[in-house]
Protein backbone atom coordinates (compact mmCIF):
# COMPACT_ATOMS: atom_id res chain seq x y z
CA UNK A 1 0.00 0.00 0.00
CA UNK A 2 1.71 3.16 -1.18
CA UNK A 3 0.99 6.73 -0.23
CA UNK A 4 -0.22 7.50 -3.73
CA UNK A 5 -2.91 4.81 -3.48
CA UNK A 6 -4.24 6.36 -0.28
CA UNK A 7 -4.35 9.77 -1.96
CA UNK A 8 -6.17 8.21 -4.91
CA UNK A 9 -8.71 6.57 -2.62
CA UNK A 10 -9.39 9.95 -0.95
CA UNK A 11 -9.67 11.47 -4.43
CA UNK A 12 -12.31 8.87 -5.39
CA UNK A 13 -14.47 9.82 -2.41
CA UNK A 14 -13.92 13.53 -3.05
CA UNK A 15 -14.84 13.13 -6.72
CA UNK A 16 -18.16 11.56 -5.76
CA UNK A 17 -18.75 14.18 -3.07
CA UNK A 18 -18.00 17.20 -5.25
CA UNK A 19 -19.19 16.13 -8.70
CA UNK A 20 -22.51 14.54 -7.65
CA UNK A 21 -24.51 17.82 -7.66
CA UNK A 22 -23.05 18.64 -11.08
CA UNK A 23 -24.52 15.46 -12.61
CA UNK A 24 -27.90 16.26 -11.07
CA UNK A 25 -27.66 19.78 -12.52
CA UNK A 26 -26.74 18.46 -15.98
CA UNK A 27 -29.70 16.06 -16.03
CA UNK A 28 -32.15 18.74 -14.86
CA UNK A 29 -30.79 21.24 -17.36
CA UNK A 30 -31.09 18.69 -20.19
CA UNK A 31 -34.68 17.99 -19.23
CA UNK A 32 -35.54 21.68 -19.27
CA UNK A 33 -33.86 22.13 -22.64
CA UNK A 34 -35.67 19.13 -24.14
CA UNK A 35 -38.95 20.69 -23.02
CA UNK A 36 -37.86 23.97 -24.68
CA UNK A 37 -37.43 25.85 -21.41
CA UNK A 38 -34.44 27.95 -20.47
CA UNK A 39 -33.37 25.92 -17.43
CA UNK A 40 -31.60 27.14 -14.30
CA UNK A 41 -28.08 26.22 -15.43
CA UNK A 42 -26.01 23.16 -14.55
CA UNK A 43 -24.68 24.65 -11.29
CA UNK A 44 -28.07 25.17 -9.68
CA UNK A 45 -27.80 22.16 -7.25
CA UNK A 46 -24.64 23.72 -5.76
CA UNK A 47 -26.48 27.02 -5.21
CA UNK A 48 -29.41 25.12 -3.65
CA UNK A 49 -27.11 23.29 -1.24
CA UNK A 50 -25.35 26.55 -0.30
CA UNK A 51 -28.70 28.21 0.37
CA UNK A 52 -30.00 25.29 2.47
CA UNK A 53 -26.84 25.16 4.59
CA UNK A 54 -27.40 28.80 5.57
CA UNK A 55 -31.03 28.38 6.52
CA UNK A 56 -32.52 27.97 9.97
CA UNK A 57 -33.28 24.45 11.22
CA UNK A 58 -36.90 23.78 12.20
CA UNK A 59 -37.50 20.46 14.01
CA UNK A 60 -41.00 18.97 14.49
CA UNK A 61 -42.05 18.44 18.10
CA UNK A 62 -42.82 14.76 17.38
CA UNK A 63 -39.30 14.04 16.12
CA UNK A 64 -37.11 11.59 18.02
CA UNK A 65 -33.40 10.79 17.76
CA UNK A 66 -34.06 9.00 14.44
CA UNK A 67 -34.84 12.34 12.85
CA UNK A 68 -31.29 13.52 13.63
CA UNK A 69 -29.48 10.28 12.81
CA UNK A 70 -31.06 9.47 9.43
CA UNK A 71 -29.41 12.25 7.35
CA UNK A 72 -26.01 11.60 8.92
CA UNK A 73 -26.22 7.84 8.35
CA UNK A 74 -27.44 8.31 4.78
CA UNK A 75 -24.63 10.78 4.02
CA UNK A 76 -21.98 8.53 5.62
CA UNK A 77 -23.21 5.49 3.71
CA UNK A 78 -22.84 7.38 0.44
CA UNK A 79 -19.30 8.39 1.46
CA UNK A 80 -18.44 4.72 2.14
CA UNK A 81 -19.57 3.11 -1.11
CA UNK A 82 -17.12 4.94 -3.44
CA UNK A 83 -14.24 3.24 -1.60
CA UNK A 84 -15.48 -0.15 -2.87
CA UNK A 85 -16.03 0.58 -6.57
CA UNK A 86 -13.82 1.68 -9.49
CA UNK A 87 -14.54 5.41 -9.78
CA UNK A 88 -11.19 6.65 -11.12
CA UNK A 89 -8.77 3.71 -11.28
CA UNK A 90 -9.32 0.24 -12.68
CA UNK A 91 -7.32 -1.53 -9.95
CA UNK A 92 -8.26 -1.98 -6.27
CA UNK A 93 -7.15 0.78 -3.91
CA UNK A 94 -6.55 0.42 -0.13
CA UNK A 95 -9.62 -0.73 1.83
CA UNK A 96 -11.55 -1.53 -1.35
CA UNK A 97 -11.54 -5.19 -0.27
CA UNK A 98 -13.89 -4.33 2.61
CA UNK A 99 -16.87 -5.48 0.58
CA UNK A 100 -17.93 -6.86 -2.80
CA UNK A 101 -20.86 -5.73 -4.97
CA UNK A 102 -23.34 -7.19 -2.50
CA UNK A 103 -21.69 -5.28 0.36
CA UNK A 104 -21.93 -2.02 -1.60
CA UNK A 105 -25.59 -2.71 -2.29
CA UNK A 106 -26.16 -3.37 1.40
CA UNK A 107 -24.64 -0.01 2.41
CA UNK A 108 -26.64 1.84 -0.27
CA UNK A 109 -29.84 0.22 1.01
CA UNK A 110 -28.96 1.09 4.61
CA UNK A 111 -29.08 4.81 3.80
CA UNK A 112 -32.44 4.42 2.07
CA UNK A 113 -33.75 2.35 5.01
CA UNK A 114 -32.82 5.07 7.53
CA UNK A 115 -34.60 7.73 5.45
CA UNK A 116 -37.71 5.51 5.35
CA UNK A 117 -37.65 5.20 9.14
CA UNK A 118 -37.21 8.98 9.47
CA UNK A 119 -40.22 9.51 7.23
CA UNK A 120 -42.34 7.42 9.61
CA UNK A 121 -40.73 8.93 12.71
CA UNK A 122 -42.37 12.37 12.65
CA UNK A 123 -45.86 10.80 12.28
CA UNK A 124 -46.88 13.23 9.54
CA UNK A 125 -49.30 11.95 6.91
CA UNK A 126 -47.04 12.68 3.93
CA UNK A 127 -44.02 11.03 5.52
CA UNK A 128 -46.05 7.86 6.03
CA UNK A 129 -47.31 7.90 2.44
CA UNK A 130 -43.81 8.51 1.09
CA UNK A 131 -42.28 5.74 3.17
CA UNK A 132 -44.98 3.22 2.29
CA UNK A 133 -44.70 3.96 -1.43
CA UNK A 134 -40.92 3.79 -1.36
CA UNK A 135 -41.05 0.41 0.39
CA UNK A 136 -43.62 -0.92 -2.08
CA UNK A 137 -41.29 -0.12 -4.95
CA UNK A 138 -38.24 -1.43 -3.06
CA UNK A 139 -39.93 -4.78 -2.34
CA UNK A 140 -39.95 -5.47 -6.07
CA UNK A 141 -36.66 -3.74 -6.89
CA UNK A 142 -34.48 -5.59 -4.36
CA UNK A 143 -35.03 -9.18 -5.66
CA UNK A 144 -34.22 -7.95 -9.16
CA UNK A 145 -31.07 -6.26 -7.88
CA UNK A 146 -30.00 -9.52 -6.25
CA UNK A 147 -30.71 -11.39 -9.50
CA UNK A 148 -28.58 -8.89 -11.43
CA UNK A 149 -25.77 -9.47 -8.93
CA UNK A 150 -26.16 -13.23 -9.39
CA UNK A 151 -25.97 -12.70 -13.16
CA UNK A 152 -22.79 -10.63 -12.82
CA UNK A 153 -21.30 -13.29 -10.57
CA UNK A 154 -22.08 -16.08 -13.02
CA UNK A 155 -20.67 -14.02 -15.88
CA UNK A 156 -17.37 -13.07 -14.25
CA UNK A 157 -17.10 -15.91 -11.71
CA UNK A 158 -16.40 -13.23 -9.10
CA UNK A 159 -18.31 -10.63 -7.12
CA UNK A 160 -15.70 -7.89 -7.22
CA UNK A 161 -16.48 -4.94 -9.54
CA UNK A 162 -12.83 -4.70 -10.59
CA UNK A 163 -12.83 -8.28 -11.91
CA UNK A 164 -15.96 -7.62 -13.97
CA UNK A 165 -14.39 -4.45 -15.38
CA UNK A 166 -11.19 -6.26 -16.41
CA UNK A 167 -13.13 -9.14 -17.96
CA UNK A 168 -15.31 -6.86 -20.10
CA UNK A 169 -12.33 -4.82 -21.29
CA UNK A 170 -10.27 -7.91 -22.09
CA UNK A 171 -12.92 -10.00 -23.88
CA UNK A 172 -15.19 -8.27 -26.43
CA UNK A 173 -16.99 -11.61 -26.95
CA UNK A 174 -18.24 -11.47 -23.35
CA UNK A 175 -19.12 -7.79 -23.73
CA UNK A 176 -21.37 -8.48 -26.73
CA UNK A 177 -22.86 -11.71 -25.35
CA UNK A 178 -26.62 -11.69 -24.70
CA UNK A 179 -25.96 -12.38 -21.00
CA UNK A 180 -24.14 -9.08 -20.58
CA UNK A 181 -26.51 -7.03 -22.74
CA UNK A 182 -29.55 -8.26 -20.81
CA UNK A 183 -27.80 -7.44 -17.53
CA UNK A 184 -27.20 -3.90 -18.81
CA UNK A 185 -30.88 -3.53 -19.71
CA UNK A 186 -32.06 -4.92 -16.36
CA UNK A 187 -29.70 -2.64 -14.45
CA UNK A 188 -30.84 0.36 -16.48
CA UNK A 189 -34.41 -0.16 -15.24
CA UNK A 190 -33.10 -0.48 -11.68
CA UNK A 191 -31.11 2.74 -12.19
CA UNK A 192 -34.32 4.54 -13.15
CA UNK A 193 -36.08 3.08 -10.11
CA UNK A 194 -33.40 4.04 -7.63
CA UNK A 195 -32.94 7.59 -8.97
CA UNK A 196 -36.72 8.27 -9.04
CA UNK A 197 -37.05 8.51 -12.80
CA UNK A 198 -39.57 5.76 -13.53
CA UNK A 199 -42.70 6.77 -15.45
CA UNK A 200 -44.56 6.63 -12.12
CA UNK A 201 -42.36 9.27 -10.58
CA UNK A 202 -43.54 12.78 -11.19
CA UNK A 203 -41.31 15.50 -12.67
CA UNK A 204 -42.39 18.17 -10.19
CA UNK A 205 -41.64 17.06 -6.71
CA UNK A 206 -43.95 18.63 -4.15
CA UNK A 207 -47.37 17.17 -4.94
CA UNK A 208 -49.59 14.24 -3.94
CA UNK A 209 -47.87 11.64 -6.15
CA UNK A 210 -44.46 12.20 -4.59
CA UNK A 211 -42.54 9.14 -3.46
CA UNK A 212 -39.06 9.98 -2.25
CA UNK A 213 -39.77 13.64 -1.66
CA UNK A 214 -42.60 12.66 0.70
CA UNK A 215 -40.21 10.94 3.09
CA UNK A 216 -38.08 14.06 3.61
CA UNK A 217 -40.88 16.60 3.62
CA UNK A 218 -40.42 17.37 7.34
CA UNK A 219 -36.76 18.26 6.97
CA UNK A 220 -35.42 21.78 6.59
CA UNK A 221 -32.16 23.70 6.55
CA UNK A 222 -28.81 21.91 6.83
CA UNK A 223 -30.37 18.46 7.45
CA UNK A 224 -32.37 18.76 4.24
CA UNK A 225 -29.19 19.83 2.47
CA UNK A 226 -27.42 16.68 3.74
CA UNK A 227 -30.29 14.48 2.50
CA UNK A 228 -30.37 16.17 -0.92
CA UNK A 229 -26.61 15.83 -1.22
CA UNK A 230 -26.81 12.17 -0.20
CA UNK A 231 -29.45 11.47 -2.85
CA UNK A 232 -27.38 13.11 -5.60
CA UNK A 233 -24.38 11.08 -4.41
CA UNK A 234 -26.45 7.90 -4.58
CA UNK A 235 -27.32 8.78 -8.17
CA UNK A 236 -23.62 9.38 -8.94
CA UNK A 237 -22.61 6.05 -7.38
CA UNK A 238 -25.24 4.09 -9.29
CA UNK A 239 -24.20 5.80 -12.53
CA UNK A 240 -20.58 4.91 -11.75
CA UNK A 241 -21.43 1.25 -11.23
CA UNK A 242 -23.52 1.24 -14.41
CA UNK A 243 -20.82 2.90 -16.53
CA UNK A 244 -17.52 1.67 -15.09
CA UNK A 245 -18.58 -1.87 -14.29
CA UNK A 246 -21.22 -2.76 -16.86
CA UNK A 247 -21.78 -0.48 -19.83
CA UNK A 248 -18.60 1.47 -20.59
CA UNK A 249 -15.72 -0.19 -18.72
CA UNK A 250 -13.07 1.73 -20.68
CA UNK A 251 -11.38 5.01 -19.91
CA UNK A 252 -10.20 4.37 -16.35
CA UNK A 253 -6.74 5.15 -15.05
CA UNK A 254 -4.44 2.10 -15.35
CA UNK A 255 -1.37 3.45 -13.55
CA UNK A 256 -2.77 6.06 -11.19
CA UNK A 257 -0.69 9.00 -12.43
CA UNK A 258 -2.05 12.52 -12.02
CA UNK A 259 -2.61 12.85 -15.77
CA UNK A 260 -4.42 9.48 -15.94
CA UNK A 261 -6.70 10.35 -13.05
CA UNK A 262 -7.58 13.72 -14.60
CA UNK A 263 -8.33 11.95 -17.87
CA UNK A 264 -10.48 9.33 -16.17
CA UNK A 265 -12.44 12.05 -14.34
CA UNK A 266 -13.18 13.75 -17.65
CA UNK A 267 -14.06 10.38 -19.22
CA UNK A 268 -16.40 9.69 -16.31
CA UNK A 269 -18.20 12.99 -16.90
CA UNK A 270 -18.47 12.17 -20.61
CA UNK A 271 -19.98 8.74 -19.90
CA UNK A 272 -22.42 10.24 -17.44
CA UNK A 273 -23.57 12.79 -20.00
CA UNK A 274 -24.29 9.88 -22.40
CA UNK A 275 -26.28 7.99 -19.75
CA UNK A 276 -28.04 11.21 -18.75
CA UNK A 277 -29.16 11.67 -22.37
CA UNK A 278 -30.70 8.18 -22.33
CA UNK A 279 -32.37 8.86 -18.98
CA UNK A 280 -33.76 12.21 -20.15
CA UNK A 281 -35.03 10.56 -23.34
CA UNK A 282 -36.91 7.89 -21.34
CA UNK A 283 -38.22 10.50 -18.94
CA UNK A 284 -39.53 12.75 -21.70
CA UNK A 285 -40.71 10.21 -24.26
CA UNK A 286 -42.65 7.99 -21.84
CA UNK A 287 -45.91 9.41 -20.57
CA UNK A 288 -46.73 9.39 -16.85
CA UNK A 289 -48.38 6.24 -15.52
CA UNK A 290 -50.55 5.91 -12.46
CA UNK A 291 -48.72 4.65 -9.38
CA UNK A 292 -50.24 1.17 -9.36
CA UNK A 293 -48.56 0.27 -12.62
CA UNK A 294 -45.21 0.38 -10.87
CA UNK A 295 -44.83 -3.42 -11.15
CA UNK A 296 -44.59 -3.46 -14.93
CA UNK A 297 -41.08 -2.01 -15.47
CA UNK A 298 -39.86 -3.97 -12.48
CA UNK A 299 -41.34 -7.21 -13.83
CA UNK A 300 -39.65 -6.50 -17.16
CA UNK A 301 -36.36 -5.94 -15.37
CA UNK A 302 -36.80 -9.19 -13.41
CA UNK A 303 -37.44 -11.01 -16.66
CA UNK A 304 -34.35 -9.54 -18.32
CA UNK A 305 -32.23 -10.63 -15.35
CA UNK A 306 -33.66 -14.18 -15.59
CA UNK A 307 -32.96 -14.31 -19.34
CA UNK A 308 -29.42 -13.11 -18.71
CA UNK A 309 -28.82 -15.81 -16.10
CA UNK A 310 -30.16 -18.41 -18.54
CA UNK A 311 -27.83 -17.24 -21.28
CA UNK A 312 -24.84 -17.37 -18.92
CA UNK A 313 -25.71 -21.02 -18.31
CA UNK A 314 -25.40 -21.76 -22.00
CA UNK A 315 -22.38 -19.72 -23.01
Amino acid at each position, binding site marked *: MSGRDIVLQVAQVLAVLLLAPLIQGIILQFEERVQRAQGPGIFQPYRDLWKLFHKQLVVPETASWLYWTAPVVAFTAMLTVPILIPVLTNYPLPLSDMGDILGGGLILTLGSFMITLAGLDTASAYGGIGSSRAVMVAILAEPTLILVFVGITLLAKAMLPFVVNHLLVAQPAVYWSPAHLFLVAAFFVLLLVETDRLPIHSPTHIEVYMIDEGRILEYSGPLLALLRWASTMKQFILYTIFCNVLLLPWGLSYLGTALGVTGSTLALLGKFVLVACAVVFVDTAQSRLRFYRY*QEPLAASF*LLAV*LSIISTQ*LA
Partner: protein
Amino acid sequence: MLTAHLNPLAASLFSLIAIASLLLAFVMLGSRWLRHYLYAFAAESWLIGILSAAVGFYGNYPELYLIAILTVVFRGGLLPYLIFRIIRRLHVSREVHEILQPSSGLVIGALAVIFALGVSSRIGAELGMSGTVVVLALTVMLSMKLLGFLMLAARHEALSHILGLLVLENGIFLGAQILVPGMPLLIEIVILFDLLIVVACFGLLVQYLMTHVGTTSSLELRRLVG
Protein backbone atom coordinates in the same frame (compact mmCIF):
# COMPACT_ATOMS: atom_id res chain seq x y z
CA MET B 1 -25.81 -32.82 -37.15
CA LEU B 2 -25.06 -29.21 -38.00
CA THR B 3 -25.03 -27.89 -34.45
CA ALA B 4 -22.42 -30.32 -33.14
CA HIS B 5 -19.53 -28.61 -34.94
CA LEU B 6 -20.39 -24.96 -35.44
CA ASN B 7 -17.83 -22.18 -35.45
CA PRO B 8 -18.21 -19.83 -32.45
CA LEU B 9 -19.39 -16.82 -34.49
CA ALA B 10 -22.28 -18.80 -36.00
CA ALA B 11 -23.20 -20.23 -32.61
CA SER B 12 -23.31 -16.77 -31.04
CA LEU B 13 -25.33 -15.40 -33.97
CA PHE B 14 -27.87 -18.23 -33.64
CA SER B 15 -28.13 -17.77 -29.89
CA LEU B 16 -28.55 -13.99 -30.24
CA ILE B 17 -31.41 -14.39 -32.75
CA ALA B 18 -33.06 -17.11 -30.65
CA ILE B 19 -32.91 -15.05 -27.47
CA ALA B 20 -34.15 -11.94 -29.29
CA SER B 21 -37.20 -13.82 -30.57
CA LEU B 22 -37.87 -15.12 -27.06
CA LEU B 23 -37.72 -11.50 -25.87
CA LEU B 24 -40.28 -10.53 -28.54
CA ALA B 25 -42.58 -13.29 -27.28
CA PHE B 26 -42.30 -11.62 -23.88
CA VAL B 27 -43.14 -8.27 -25.46
CA MET B 28 -46.35 -9.88 -26.70
CA LEU B 29 -47.03 -11.25 -23.23
CA GLY B 30 -46.39 -7.94 -21.47
CA SER B 31 -48.10 -5.37 -23.66
CA ARG B 32 -51.70 -4.29 -23.40
CA TRP B 33 -52.57 -3.39 -26.97
CA LEU B 34 -53.50 -5.95 -29.62
CA ARG B 35 -51.65 -3.90 -32.22
CA HIS B 36 -48.40 -4.26 -30.25
CA TYR B 37 -48.87 -8.04 -30.15
CA LEU B 38 -49.06 -7.93 -33.90
CA TYR B 39 -45.94 -5.81 -34.40
CA ALA B 40 -43.97 -8.06 -32.05
CA PHE B 41 -45.20 -11.14 -33.91
CA ALA B 42 -44.17 -9.65 -37.27
CA ALA B 43 -40.71 -8.74 -35.91
CA GLU B 44 -40.32 -12.23 -34.48
CA SER B 45 -41.15 -13.77 -37.85
CA TRP B 46 -38.57 -11.55 -39.55
CA LEU B 47 -35.98 -12.74 -37.03
CA ILE B 48 -36.87 -16.35 -37.73
CA GLY B 49 -36.52 -15.68 -41.44
CA ILE B 50 -33.05 -14.23 -40.84
CA LEU B 51 -32.24 -17.29 -38.72
CA SER B 52 -33.28 -19.61 -41.56
CA ALA B 53 -31.01 -17.75 -43.96
CA ALA B 54 -28.12 -17.88 -41.46
CA VAL B 55 -28.58 -21.63 -40.93
CA GLY B 56 -28.68 -22.07 -44.68
CA PHE B 57 -25.49 -20.06 -45.07
CA TYR B 58 -23.47 -21.79 -42.35
CA GLY B 59 -24.82 -25.29 -42.99
CA ASN B 60 -24.86 -25.24 -46.81
CA TYR B 61 -28.57 -25.80 -47.27
CA PRO B 62 -29.51 -23.67 -50.30
CA GLU B 63 -33.21 -24.51 -50.03
CA LEU B 64 -33.30 -22.72 -46.68
CA TYR B 65 -32.91 -19.38 -48.49
CA LEU B 66 -36.24 -20.03 -50.20
CA ILE B 67 -37.78 -20.92 -46.84
CA ALA B 68 -36.37 -17.72 -45.34
CA ILE B 69 -37.98 -15.64 -48.09
CA LEU B 70 -41.28 -17.51 -47.69
CA THR B 71 -41.17 -17.04 -43.89
CA VAL B 72 -40.57 -13.32 -44.18
CA VAL B 73 -43.25 -12.85 -46.85
CA PHE B 74 -45.93 -15.04 -45.23
CA ARG B 75 -45.32 -14.84 -41.49
CA GLY B 76 -43.73 -11.41 -41.42
CA GLY B 77 -45.96 -9.74 -44.00
CA LEU B 78 -49.14 -11.47 -45.11
CA LEU B 79 -50.38 -12.98 -41.83
CA PRO B 80 -49.88 -9.77 -39.80
CA TYR B 81 -51.59 -7.81 -42.59
CA LEU B 82 -54.63 -10.13 -42.55
CA ILE B 83 -54.87 -9.99 -38.75
CA PHE B 84 -54.44 -6.23 -38.87
CA ARG B 85 -57.43 -5.99 -41.20
CA ILE B 86 -59.49 -8.05 -38.75
CA ILE B 87 -58.43 -5.79 -35.87
CA ARG B 88 -59.46 -2.72 -37.83
CA ARG B 89 -62.83 -4.24 -38.64
CA LEU B 90 -63.51 -5.33 -35.07
CA HIS B 91 -62.79 -2.04 -33.27
CA VAL B 92 -61.17 -4.01 -30.45
CA SER B 93 -57.87 -2.42 -29.56
CA ARG B 94 -57.08 -4.08 -26.25
CA GLU B 95 -58.13 -6.72 -23.76
CA VAL B 96 -60.74 -5.00 -21.63
CA HIS B 97 -61.08 -7.51 -18.80
CA GLU B 98 -57.64 -8.82 -18.00
CA ILE B 99 -57.51 -12.26 -16.41
CA LEU B 100 -53.79 -11.92 -15.77
CA GLN B 101 -52.02 -8.59 -15.29
CA PRO B 102 -49.18 -8.05 -17.79
CA SER B 103 -46.63 -7.83 -14.97
CA SER B 104 -47.74 -11.12 -13.36
CA GLY B 105 -47.76 -12.61 -16.84
CA LEU B 106 -44.11 -11.61 -17.30
CA VAL B 107 -43.09 -13.18 -13.98
CA ILE B 108 -44.98 -16.42 -14.73
CA GLY B 109 -43.38 -16.43 -18.18
CA ALA B 110 -39.93 -16.06 -16.57
CA LEU B 111 -40.70 -19.09 -14.38
CA ALA B 112 -41.79 -20.99 -17.52
CA VAL B 113 -38.43 -20.17 -19.13
CA ILE B 114 -36.59 -21.51 -16.08
CA PHE B 115 -38.67 -24.72 -16.30
CA ALA B 116 -37.86 -25.01 -20.01
CA LEU B 117 -34.16 -24.54 -19.25
CA GLY B 118 -34.32 -27.32 -16.66
CA VAL B 119 -36.00 -29.74 -19.08
CA SER B 120 -33.79 -28.97 -22.03
CA SER B 121 -30.52 -29.11 -20.09
CA ARG B 122 -31.62 -32.61 -18.96
CA ILE B 123 -32.22 -33.57 -22.59
CA GLY B 124 -28.93 -31.96 -23.62
CA ALA B 125 -27.07 -33.93 -20.95
CA GLU B 126 -28.68 -37.16 -22.17
CA LEU B 127 -27.57 -36.41 -25.71
CA GLY B 128 -24.12 -35.42 -24.51
CA MET B 129 -24.23 -31.87 -25.85
CA SER B 130 -24.82 -29.79 -22.74
CA GLY B 131 -23.69 -26.18 -22.95
CA THR B 132 -24.07 -25.89 -26.73
CA VAL B 133 -26.49 -24.03 -28.94
CA VAL B 134 -28.65 -27.18 -29.03
CA VAL B 135 -29.69 -26.65 -25.42
CA LEU B 136 -30.41 -23.00 -26.15
CA ALA B 137 -32.57 -23.85 -29.16
CA LEU B 138 -34.47 -26.44 -27.11
CA THR B 139 -34.94 -23.91 -24.27
CA VAL B 140 -36.22 -21.22 -26.59
CA MET B 141 -38.50 -23.67 -28.39
CA LEU B 142 -40.02 -25.07 -25.21
CA SER B 143 -40.40 -21.68 -23.57
CA MET B 144 -42.04 -20.14 -26.63
CA LYS B 145 -44.47 -23.04 -26.64
CA LEU B 146 -45.21 -22.51 -22.95
CA LEU B 147 -45.65 -18.78 -23.52
CA GLY B 148 -48.04 -19.50 -26.39
CA PHE B 149 -50.05 -21.78 -24.11
CA LEU B 150 -50.03 -19.07 -21.44
CA MET B 151 -51.38 -16.55 -23.96
CA LEU B 152 -54.09 -19.00 -25.05
CA ALA B 153 -55.08 -19.70 -21.45
CA ALA B 154 -54.91 -16.24 -19.90
CA ARG B 155 -56.42 -14.12 -22.66
CA HIS B 156 -59.98 -14.17 -23.87
CA GLU B 157 -60.11 -12.04 -27.02
CA ALA B 158 -60.30 -14.28 -30.08
CA LEU B 159 -57.49 -12.24 -31.67
CA SER B 160 -55.15 -12.92 -28.78
CA HIS B 161 -55.95 -16.60 -29.11
CA ILE B 162 -54.90 -16.75 -32.72
CA LEU B 163 -51.73 -14.81 -31.93
CA GLY B 164 -50.95 -17.22 -29.08
CA LEU B 165 -51.35 -20.09 -31.51
CA LEU B 166 -49.03 -18.39 -33.99
CA VAL B 167 -46.37 -17.80 -31.30
CA LEU B 168 -46.55 -21.47 -30.37
CA GLU B 169 -46.04 -22.38 -34.00
CA ASN B 170 -43.19 -19.88 -34.37
CA GLY B 171 -41.43 -21.54 -31.44
CA ILE B 172 -41.64 -24.97 -33.04
CA PHE B 173 -40.43 -23.59 -36.36
CA LEU B 174 -37.48 -21.80 -34.74
CA GLY B 175 -36.40 -24.91 -32.86
CA ALA B 176 -36.76 -27.02 -35.99
CA GLN B 177 -34.61 -24.61 -38.00
CA ILE B 178 -31.68 -25.00 -35.62
CA LEU B 179 -32.11 -28.63 -34.59
CA VAL B 180 -33.07 -30.35 -37.86
CA PRO B 181 -32.26 -27.88 -40.63
CA GLY B 182 -32.60 -30.40 -43.42
CA MET B 183 -36.39 -30.72 -43.26
CA PRO B 184 -37.95 -31.36 -46.67
CA LEU B 185 -39.00 -28.16 -48.40
CA LEU B 186 -42.48 -29.46 -49.05
CA ILE B 187 -43.28 -29.80 -45.34
CA GLU B 188 -42.30 -26.21 -44.68
CA ILE B 189 -44.48 -24.95 -47.50
CA VAL B 190 -47.38 -27.07 -46.24
CA ILE B 191 -46.99 -25.58 -42.76
CA LEU B 192 -47.01 -22.05 -44.17
CA PHE B 193 -50.20 -22.62 -46.15
CA ASP B 194 -51.70 -24.32 -43.12
CA LEU B 195 -51.19 -21.14 -41.15
CA LEU B 196 -52.71 -19.08 -43.94
CA ILE B 197 -55.81 -21.30 -43.86
CA VAL B 198 -55.96 -20.99 -40.05
CA VAL B 199 -56.01 -17.21 -40.28
CA ALA B 200 -58.59 -17.22 -43.10
CA CYS B 201 -60.87 -19.56 -41.12
CA PHE B 202 -60.39 -17.34 -38.14
CA GLY B 203 -61.58 -14.34 -40.14
CA LEU B 204 -64.78 -16.22 -40.98
CA LEU B 205 -65.18 -17.26 -37.34
CA VAL B 206 -64.86 -13.67 -36.16
CA GLN B 207 -67.50 -12.62 -38.69
CA TYR B 208 -69.79 -15.35 -37.36
CA LEU B 209 -69.18 -14.45 -33.71
CA MET B 210 -69.86 -10.78 -34.38
CA THR B 211 -73.18 -11.41 -36.14
CA HIS B 212 -74.50 -14.17 -33.85
CA VAL B 213 -73.02 -13.42 -30.42
CA GLY B 214 -72.08 -9.76 -30.74
CA THR B 215 -68.65 -10.15 -29.16
CA THR B 216 -65.37 -11.94 -29.82
CA SER B 217 -64.47 -12.38 -26.15
CA SER B 218 -64.51 -15.97 -24.92
CA LEU B 219 -65.69 -14.75 -21.51
CA GLU B 220 -69.19 -14.42 -22.99
CA LEU B 221 -69.22 -17.89 -24.55
CA ARG B 222 -70.44 -19.96 -21.61
CA ARG B 223 -73.50 -21.73 -22.96
CA LEU B 224 -73.58 -24.74 -25.28
CA VAL B 225 -75.90 -24.23 -28.21
CA GLY B 226 -76.91 -26.84 -30.75
